[in-house]
């Protein structure tokens, strides 16, 4: 569990390669899947195009549930990319774990708090940016921190931090704990030879299936909350 991380400094910036590599892999998988699905686009959709359009309809549905008006449609691409990237990231570690000399090279990128915090930081910054853009800086302050009642200002400010932490740590916690338990079951299967290996197989399968479910739910929750935070910033309360 406590594998060492392979850290490389490039221009004095510390890069955790055992976190970056799976992220790159997930991005590549997402890109090539979508690329493959979007070949031969026709007016009358067939086969792969139907799958892609179903995914797009699904993510657009998430947007519509929080922002039913026309304004929401501009976030379609962001939510689509965010959902597919997090979904693939969550499932990646369930299927593929590569450890070399106790150093992880392939796992779920979202099982690292750095990744989920980056994503959460990015979408929340984007939400604040949209708020400022729409209402101006004064309007943004008023809308976000001073309404409905000004004396809740400290709580409003605190809420922004908790939003960030909960959004990031919820995803991280779910996926990380899933992987920890997967490894625990793996260790258990190894420890007593055949006597523990055989019962470990169905346990591992069941936990993997459950983790697939959790990973999907968490991807959905993450993008739904992203939309909620964005709509809070750009809609007058």
């Amino acid at each position, binding site marked *: 569990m406590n594998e060492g991380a392979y850290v490389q400094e490039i221009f004095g910036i510390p890069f*955790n390669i055992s976190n970056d590599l799976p992220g790159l892999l997930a*991005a590549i998988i997402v890109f090539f899947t*979508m690329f493959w699905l*979007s070949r031969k*686009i026709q007016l009358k959709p067939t086969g792969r195009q139907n799958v892609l359009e179903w995914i797009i309809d699904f993510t657009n549905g998430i947007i519509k549930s929080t922002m039913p008006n026309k304004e929401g449609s501009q976030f379609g691409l962001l939510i689509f*990319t965010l959902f597919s990237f997090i979904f693939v990231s969550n499932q990646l570690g369930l299927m593929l774990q590569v450890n070399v000399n106790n150093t992880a090279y392939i796992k779920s990128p979202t099982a690292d*708090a*750095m990744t989920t915090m980056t994503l959460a930081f990015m979408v929340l910054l984007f939400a604040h940016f949209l708020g400022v853009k729409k209402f101006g800086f004064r309007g943004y302050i008023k809308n976000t921190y001073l309404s409905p009642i000004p004396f809740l200002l400290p709580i409003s400010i605190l809420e922004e931090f908790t939003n960030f932490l909960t959004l990031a740590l919820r995803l991280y916690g779910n996926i990380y704990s899933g992987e920890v338990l997967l490894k625990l079951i793996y260790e258990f299967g190894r420890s007593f030879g055949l006597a523990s290996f055989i019962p470990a197989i169905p346990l591992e399968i069941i936990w993997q299936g459950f983790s697939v479910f959790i990973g999907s739910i968490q991807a959905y929750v993450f993008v739904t909350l992203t939309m909620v935070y964005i709509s809070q910033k750009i809609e007058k309360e």
Partner: protein
Amino acid sequence: MGTDFILGAVATSVKWGDMLFYLVLFIVLIALLKHFAWGPVNEMMDKRANKIANDIDSAEDARQKAEDLAEKRQSALKESHVEASQIIERAKKNGEQQKNIIVENAHSEAQSFKETAKQDIARERQDALEGVKNDVAELSLEIASKVISKNLQLDDQKALIDSYIEGLGKQNEVK
């Protein structure tokens, strides 16, 4: 990992390069997906939505047009019915008129034929009578001259004879 990341307590061991890496990675992923998958598919979905809307509109149009056409045809049919009955009516009237004219013509022609025939007969009879009158006059004269052996002047006696013959004629007609 463990406690490293919590509020940056141990700032130096935070691998903040990852943040840059994921930021760049995500933005690049968005750009690529937009160009290769999202853009074309969304465009096609919009196009499809437009096409469906257009198709619905044009179907409505076509239905309206067909309805108009049917109505027009119906009225034309009605009109042609009326016209046909008018034509038949007129033809009947014309026929009647023609018939009347022909019959009238025939009548008048027959009448005139009869008239001329009558006149002819009358004249012929008159001529015949005249001829007979003359003959009778001459004959009576001859007979009389022979009977009384006296040379009677034809012109002097003619009036007498004429009246006599007239009386004969009248006697005949009475008979």
